[in-house]
C-alpha cells in the first residue's frame, strides 16, 4: 500500500492500463510535451517517457476535434483517454460528447461501441467564470454517457481503471483542490486527499456509492470537494448530538440510488451539498429521487446546499460565498431539527 495523491493515483491507473492493454492511449493538450506539465494538473506527467508520444498524444488546441478523433478511435478498436485541461472547455466539445459519443451506440441499434474516457477538472479555484465551473449535471443528463467523480485517491485509481475497461463513454470529473498537485501546479486552498492505494490491480465498480460516515439522524450527500465539507460538518454536528451519515455517490451515472434511499429511509432527513449552481443542478435529482421514493420516511423537507446562481466569481471573498461552506451546511442541517 502506497499513500498517493489523487493526481498520482490517476497517473498510476493510466500507466497500469496502458501497460496492460496496448489499445489504451492518452490524447489532449500539453499532456506529453517534454519539459511540460503533464496536462494542466500533472496527471500525465512522465507517461510519454515510458509510452512515447504516439500513445501520449499532444493535440492542437481543438477540443471538439480531438473529442471526435477519440470517438472515431474508440469505435475502431482503441481505448482513448482524452484529457481536458479545464472542465469549462467541455462546452467546446459539447456536440461531440452529447450528440455523437453518447448516441452512437443507440443510433446504431447497439452495433457500435464507444469505449472512451474523458477526464476533466472542475471546481472553483479563483480562476473566474471560464475556468472554475462545476459541470457534472450537464453530462449526467445525457443518456449514453457514464459519469464518475472520485473524491479519494483509492476511488480515483479504481474508477479510472473501471472507466478504461468500460465499453461506453465515461466522463471522469476531478476536483482541482483534491488533486494534491505539487510544486508549480499546486493549488491554494487545496484539501489533503492523499490516501492509501493498493499495489495490486483493482477497480472500483462504476455505479457503487460509498458511505463516508455512518449516522442515524440525517443524510448528507456530497461529491468531490463537498464530500469533505460534509464530513467536517458531520464531525461538528456530532458535538450537538446530531449523528449525520455522509454519502459519496462516487458514480453519478449510473447512480447508486439504493444506497441513498436506504440512508434517507433510515435517517428521515436529507441535505444534498454541491458546489454547482442550485437551479437545475445535480442536487435537484437527488432531492427529487428522495421526495418520490422515500417520501413517507421523510421527517423534514429534503434540502440543498449549493452555490448561488451566479458564475464562479474571481474575487476570493466572493468565491467563499460561492462554494458551500461548512457553516452553511450546519445551518441547513440544524434547521431540520
Amino acid at each position, binding site marked *: 500500500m502506497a499513500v498517493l495523491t489523487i493526481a498520482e493515483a490517476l497517473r498510476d491507473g493510466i500507466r497500469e492500463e496502458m501497460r496492460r492493454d496496448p489499445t489504451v492511449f492518452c490524447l489532449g493538450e500539453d499532456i506529453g510535451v517534454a519539459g511540460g506539465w503533464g496536462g494542466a494538473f500533472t496527471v500525465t506527467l512522465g507517461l510519454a517517457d515510458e509510452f512515447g508520444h504516439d500513445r501520449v498524444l499532444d493535440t492542437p488546441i481543438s477540443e471538439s476535434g480531438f473529442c471526435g478523433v477519440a470517438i472515431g478511435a474508440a469505435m475502431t478498436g482503441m481505448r482513448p483517454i482524452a484529457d481536458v485541461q479545464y472542465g469549462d472547455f467541455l462546452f467546446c466539445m459539447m456536440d461531440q460528447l452529447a450528440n455523437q459519443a453518447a448516441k452512437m*451506440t443507440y443510433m446504431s*441499434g447497439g452495433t457500435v461501441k464507444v469505449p472512451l474516457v474523458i477526464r476533466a477538472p472542475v471546481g472553483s479555484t479563483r480562476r473566474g467564470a471560464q475556468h472554475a465551473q462545476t459541470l457534472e449535471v450537464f453530462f449526467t443528463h445525457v443518456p449514453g454517457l457514464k459519469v464518475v467523480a472520485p473524491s479519494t485517491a483509492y476511488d480515483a485509481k479504481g474508477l479510472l481503471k473501471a472507466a478504461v475497461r468500460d465499453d461506453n463513454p465515461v466522463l471522469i470529473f476531478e476536483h482541482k483542490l483534491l488533486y494534491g498537485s505539487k510544486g508549480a501546479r499546486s493549488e491554494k486552498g487545496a484539501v489533503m486527499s492523499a490516501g492509501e492505494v493498493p499495489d495490486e490491480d483493482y477497480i472500483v465498480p462504476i455505479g457503487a456509492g460509498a458511505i463516508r460516515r455512518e449516522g442515524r439522524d440525517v443524510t448528507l450527500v456530497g461529491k468531490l470537494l463537498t464530500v469533505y465539507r460534509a464530513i467536517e460538518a458531520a464531525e461538528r454536528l456530532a458535538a450537538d448530538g446530531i449523528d449525520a451519515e455522509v454519502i459519496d455517490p462516487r458514480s453519478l451515472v449510473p447512480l447508486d440510488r439504493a444506497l441513498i434511499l436506504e440512508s434517507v429511509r433510515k435517517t428521515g432527513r436529507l441535505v444534498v451539498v454541491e458546489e454547482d449552481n442550485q437551479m437545475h443542478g445535480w442536487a435537484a435529482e437527488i432531492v427529487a429521487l428522495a421526495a418520490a421514493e422515500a417520501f413517507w420516511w421523510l421527517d423534514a423537507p429534503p434540502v440543498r446546499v449549493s452555490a448561488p446562481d451566479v458564475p464562479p466569481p474571481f474575487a476570493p471573498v466572493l468565491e467563499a460565498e460561492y462554494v458551500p461552506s461548512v457553516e452553511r451546511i450546519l445551518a441547513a442541517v440544524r434547521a431540520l431539527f
Partner: protein
Amino acid sequence: MTAAAPAATGTAVLLDLYRCMLLIRRFEERCNALFLQGRIPSTLHLYIGQEAVAAGVCSALRVDDYVTGTHRPHGHALAKGVSPRAIMAELMAKETGCCKGRGGSMHVGGIEVGMFPAVAIVGAGSPIAVGAALSAKMRGSDQVSVSFFGEGATNEGDWHEAMNMAAVWKLPVLFVCENNLYGASTRFEHAFSVPNIAGRASAYGMPGSEVYGNDVEAVRAAALDAVARARSGGGPSLIECRTYRLCGHSRSDACAYRPDEEEADWRRRDPLPGTAARLRAAPHDVAQHRLDALEHEVAAEVDDAVAYAEASPSPDPAEVAAHVYWEGD
C-alpha cells in the same frame, strides 16, 4: 490543386460503377415514393444526382476501410456495401433495420462494412473519420478512412479542426467534399468568399483537388490516387467533387431557390445517362440489352428490399430503453 485526369476504366469496372449508381438512384426513387405514401416516416435527404461521388470513391476502398456519412447518407451506405434490405428496413423503422429502427434515415450505416452510423450534425463526422484513421495508424493496419461531407460543412469548425489534425499527424484520410452548390437553400457564393473548397486544403499543407463529381471515372481516378497515397503513409487529401442535387434538400422541397436554367443544365448532366452513354460507346461497346438487364437486376434488388422491410417487425415498444449502453457483441 490539380484536377485528376480521368483514367481509362475497364468495361467490367465501369459496369460495376454504373450498377452501383443505378442501385442508389432506383433505391432512392422508391424511398421517395414510399415517403410520399407515408410508408416511410419523418424526413428524407435524397442523394439523387450525386451518385457518381459515392460510387467512384467507394470503388477505390476495401471493405475494411472506414466511411463517415452525412445527413444524406443512403448513397454512401449503399456504395460502401450496406445491404439495401437493412437500409430500407431502417427507413421503415423496422427492428431488422441497420440501426434496428433506432436511427432512421440520417443515421444509416453498417460497421461490418466499415461505415459508421451516419452523422447528421453537419461537419461533426470529419473528426470521427480522422479518429478512425489515427486508430488504423496506431494499430499498424493500412486501412484508410473517408469523410464525406457537403461544401456547407466546410464552414463548420469541426471540419477545420479535423483537417488540421489529419495533416499534422499525416493520417490516411480522404476528405471528400460533395459540392452540390447549395447548403440546404443557401447558394455556395452566399456562404463562401472563395471559388472552391479544394483551395482550403492549402491552409493545412494538404493536397486538394477539384474533380467533376458527375464523372464517375474522374472521381474514381482521384480517389484511387488519394487512397494509394494514404495507404502508403503519404497522408490525407481533400477531393472536391462538383455535383448537383437533382432532388429537393429534404422531404417535399420544390427548390424554388434554384434557377430553372441551372437545374435544366444539370439535368442534362445527370450522371446516370452520361455513364450509360459511355458504356454504349467505344471502347466499351456495351449492348443496350446488358444495361436493360442491369435495370431489371437492380429493380429486383429494390423490390426485395422493400418486401423484406415491409415483412419485418417493428421494434418492441417494451425495448425502448435498449441499446443506450453497449450490451455486448
